[in-house]
């Protein structure tokens, strides 16, 4: 009975489909000063292992090259450059560091300096270079000293593969850029391994490629003050989502929150914004833009976003009001009423 055999085989195949194993491979590790999570869809166990090993090595190397203050090699990387600049000397720029500096410069220019990696000295002044910032703000005189002859990214010069600056106050800190830049490189590494569908999450900022099966990647954007999710968003293809928030690194003093996103114009934490989320094809762009728009604040972010070429933006101001670009409004699935201001505590 060939008909019976054919039908029986079909049933067996359908039944096998019911028991299909999970094709999502996930892995976590600490590197780059944060938690890295990799989600891979539809890869072989061997590819998954090679991808995890390659990204672990890569994130550790990038951390070593780009950390502003720590390095295993005293003569290489950004930490060595910062020490040389503080002495008024030039320092060799290896190709990877130079590539990142070159990649960051347009965002400094297009944001009119609101994104400025030359704030390293200010970051140290506030203590955000340490695990434990605070417990009190730095003296106003110290901030005033930093603002006098304020160092900027424009003070950095690269010539004959050496980095120098006429301003000894310049200390480079790519905290508002390196994670996004690394995410773009990480996806390139996965692409090189033949991975087509992946999500790389570096401390809450992420870039995706492809999609897990027949659905997009589902992401929850954290509420800035409460536990849980403020809104859901779907990503697919080549997209990144980066959020800068005042809840990531901060300390409380005198009933006020002092966080790590510093306004280079005032030398103090940008205090009109609570969080900015940006979706863009490039994680580096999204990262730099999230920092710049946070500093720009609720009045000026649309102009800065236009200058930076980003059009998917959510900004939550210090009054809890949610500002959305048209692109972002169409993509978010809010768990709260976005018209009513969020209740924010210090």
């Amino acid at each position, binding site marked *: *009975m060939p*008909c*019976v055999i054919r*039908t*029986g085989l079909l*049933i067996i195949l359908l*039944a096998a489909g*019911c*028991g299909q194993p*999970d094709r999502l491979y996930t892995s*976590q*590790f*600490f590197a780059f*000063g*944060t*938690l890295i*999570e990799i*989600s891979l869809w539809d890869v072989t166990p061997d590819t998954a292992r090679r991808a995890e090993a390659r990204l672990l090595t890569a994130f550790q190397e990038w951390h070593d090259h780009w950390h502003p203050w720590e390095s295993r090699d005293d003569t290489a990387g950004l930490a060595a450059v910062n020490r040389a600049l503080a002495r008024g000397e030039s320092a060799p720029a290896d190709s990877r560091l130079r590539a990142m500096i070159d990649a960051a410069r347009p965002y400094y220019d297009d944001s009119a300096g609101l994104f400025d990696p030359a704030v390293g000295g200010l970051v140290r002044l506030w203590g955000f270079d340490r*695990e*434990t*910032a*605070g417990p009190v703000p730095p003296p106003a005189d110290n901030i005033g000293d930093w603002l006098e002859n304020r160092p900027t990214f424009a003070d950095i010069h690269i010539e004959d593969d050496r980095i120098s600056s006429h301003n000894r106050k310049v200390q480079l800190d790519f905290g508002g850029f390196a994670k996004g830049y690394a995410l773009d490189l990480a996806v390139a590494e996965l692409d090189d391994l033949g991975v087509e569908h992946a*999500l790389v*999450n570096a*401390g*809450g*900022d*992420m870039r995706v490629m492809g999609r*897990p099966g027949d659905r997009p*990647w*589902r*992401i*929850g*954007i*954290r509420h800035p003050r*409460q*536990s*849980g*999710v403020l809104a*859901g*968003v779907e990503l697919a293809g080549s997209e990144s*989502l*980066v*959020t800068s*928030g005042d*809840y*990531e*690194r*901060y*300390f409380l003093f005198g009933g006020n929150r002092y966080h790590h996103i510093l306004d280079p114009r005032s030398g103090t934490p940008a205090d009109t914004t609570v969080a900015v*989320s940006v979706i863009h094809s490039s994680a580096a762009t999204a990262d730099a833009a999230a920092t710049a728009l946070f500093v720009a604040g609720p009045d000026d972010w649309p102009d800065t976003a236009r200058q930076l070429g980003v059009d998917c933006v959510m900004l939550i101001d210090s009054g809890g009001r949610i500002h959305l670009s048209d692109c972002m409004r169409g993509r978010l699935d809010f768990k709260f009423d976005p018209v009513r201001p969020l209740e924010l505590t210090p």
Partner: protein
Amino acid sequence: MIPPADIPLMTAGDRLVIVLAAILIAVLYAGLWRPSAAPAAVEYLAAGESGRLDLHPDRVVDLDGPLGTSRVQFADRGVRFIESPCDGKQCLHSGWLRRGGDFAACLPNRVALTVVAADRGYDAINY
């Protein structure tokens, strides 16, 4: 095409297969298909070691990291940080984790928790 009149549209074997298929589907549905699986476990990462802990029963578990001990509480099929040796206490502010994909970490102490479920609410949390 109309079949010749002397060939039946369905043989006894076909009927048997259809009946068996119906029974098989019913058995598979009852045995394998469940409503969206409630999260049953949490994956942890602590000082480079990873593992899985059941969300049930209610209890308190210590996870050691380079700075000291992070203490997590399991209750009502959820988990949360209740003590950690970091200064920001961001992990404590993350509150209860109950849905698949819910996540919290004490980065300074290198301890992370992720709720796992067959149906992950979110693939990742952006913050």
